[in-house]
């Protein structure tokens, strides 16, 4: 690469710097003020906090039921993720490694889901869940999370498995292994890289989901983190620093997750967007 002119560099850094500031300032503002008392915030919203007051954090953790929300989000996210990836990889295996009459049709059917806005299905899903008495259960969220992420999961995994050479299964057949054995011990281990993408995508989508939770869960004990947070903020409208503490609590785990898995997350979400 040739040297860039200093003028270009200066402008580039100014632009990049402004952009970074736009992204960081709201977050810093939230974190810094979460350590202040309500009065201190009202008087000096831009000053650094006089001390590290953790009282907002203990209070937010207690009254906002953050622990309940975290546990709910965690369980729902992971159960949906495991079911989606398991069923999706099984379906992808048969779609990619077998020939049968309705293969093309079934595959196209799975892809169709990526075009459907969830809003077009929301009312029937609510009424179905009501009829099955599943409102206010983990199941009411696990089912739609699974159903709506199967498309992308099947798409990514099918594409990956299709790339394996044709005689991949030969050795398994020689050993007399059954079809599911071959799936489990030959194909699945080879699919690991694509699996990582799919797991991360499912995790982040499920963890952040709001609309289904809003409609299908009313009991405070079953709320997920996004739903619980938005309710909490709606109730504590007068306590800004308390809200900020609650938000920071929810922000920290996801940002750690992001920083640790940044590469996979960025490529995964880009792929998800391009295909979705």
């Amino acid at each position, binding site marked *: 690469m040739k040297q*860039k002119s200093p003028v270009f560099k200066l402008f*580039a850094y100014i632009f*990049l710097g402004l952009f*970074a500031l736009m*992204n*960081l300032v*709201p*977050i810093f*503002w939230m974190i810094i003020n979460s350590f202040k008392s309500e009065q201190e*915030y009202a008087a000096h*919203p831009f000053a650094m906090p006089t001390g590290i007051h953790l009282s907002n954090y203990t209070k937010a953790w207690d009254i906002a039921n953050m622990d309940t929300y975290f546990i709910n989000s965690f369980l729902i996210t992971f159960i949906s993720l495991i079911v989606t990836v398991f*069923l999706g990889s*099984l*379906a992808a295996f*048969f779609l990619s490694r077998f*020939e049968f009459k309705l293969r093309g049709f*079934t595959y196209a*059917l*799975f892809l*169709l*889901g990526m075009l*459907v806005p969830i*809003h077009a*299905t*929301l*009312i*029937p*899903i609510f*009424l*179905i869940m009501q009829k099955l008495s599943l409102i206010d259960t983990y199941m009411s969220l696990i*089912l739609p999370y*699974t*159903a709506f992420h*199967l498309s992308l999961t099947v798409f990514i995994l099918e594409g990956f498995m299709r790339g394996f050479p*044709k005689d991949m*299964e030969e050795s398994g*057949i020689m050993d007399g292994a059954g*079809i599911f054995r071959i799936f489990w011990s030959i194909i699945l281990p080879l699919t690991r890289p694509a699996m990582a993408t799919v797991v991360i995508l499912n995790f*982040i989508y499920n963890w*952040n989901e*709001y*609309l289904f939770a*809003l*409609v299908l869960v009313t009991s405070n004990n079953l709320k997920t983190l*996004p*739903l619980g*947070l*938005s309710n909490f*903020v709606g109730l504590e409208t007068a306590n800004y620093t308390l809200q900020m503490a609650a938000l920071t609590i*929810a*922000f920290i785990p*996801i940002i750690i*997750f*992001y*920083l640790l898995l940044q590469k996979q997350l960025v490529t995964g*979400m*880009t792929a998800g*967007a*391009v295909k*979705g």
Partner: protein
Amino acid sequence: MHTLKRSKLAIFIGLFPALVIYLGIAIVPIGISFYYSLMDWNGIGSKSFVGFDNYVRMFQDDTFWLSVKNNLLIMVTGLIGQLPLGLVMALLLNKALKGSGFFRTVGFMPVVISSVMVSLIWGMMYNTEYGMLNNLLKFVGLESWQQNWLGDPKWSILSISAAYIWQNVGLYMVMLLAALQNISEEVNEAAELDGATGLRRTWFITLPMIRTTLMVTIVYSISNSFRVFDLIQVLTGGGPAHQTEVMTIHMYNSAFVNLDYGYGSAVSIMILLFSLVVITIANRLGKEKA
């Protein structure tokens, strides 16, 4: 692939569970939505068939048209705000400047956090009395610029757009950056030999090279804009006085607040149609160009 031909039962067992959940929850409800859209129904009493009355009502409803207008506004501001900014960021990050990793990490961060979190953070920034924005204006002596960002109909939808753009620029940035990094070094060298440098090279060589990705980002940005829900629901709930309602919010309010399931379903079918029309047009255009 042919090695495993005789296995119909296994194929059935393997596909069945995924298909049942997927069809039952993601596909069949679309049909049910359409069926409900022909009914007058409050969810509890009996349904009565009313034909296309709900659709007629919808087309005569000013609130519905307001929500369509807001959707279009978010679409346009989204296109104008997200793509050029994302593109410039991607072009700069592609220059391998020092620290570009940091800028990419920071740029993509809003994409990873939930829209609820984004809305809550922006809600606090927009707060009239205690928000960062108005405080900042006071701090620099521009008190006359202070606004009721979310409560004033003049500003509310624009305020939402700003938060929406903030949330999504990073996604387009990395999509475009990935495309830029795929351009081979030879192309750039050839361009240089021909004397194409700087802006000229960007315009005549780089951008045409990533045309497909540019199209994808445009389509994605448009179809995304019709799916906005969380951000508005949390920031304003569609208020003040329906001023920030988009179709998804209009659907939600009709069905789950006013318990008018028939009408809500009609709106949801419109959301589906809008999405499909946009995607079809985009595909057509994409094919023509390619």
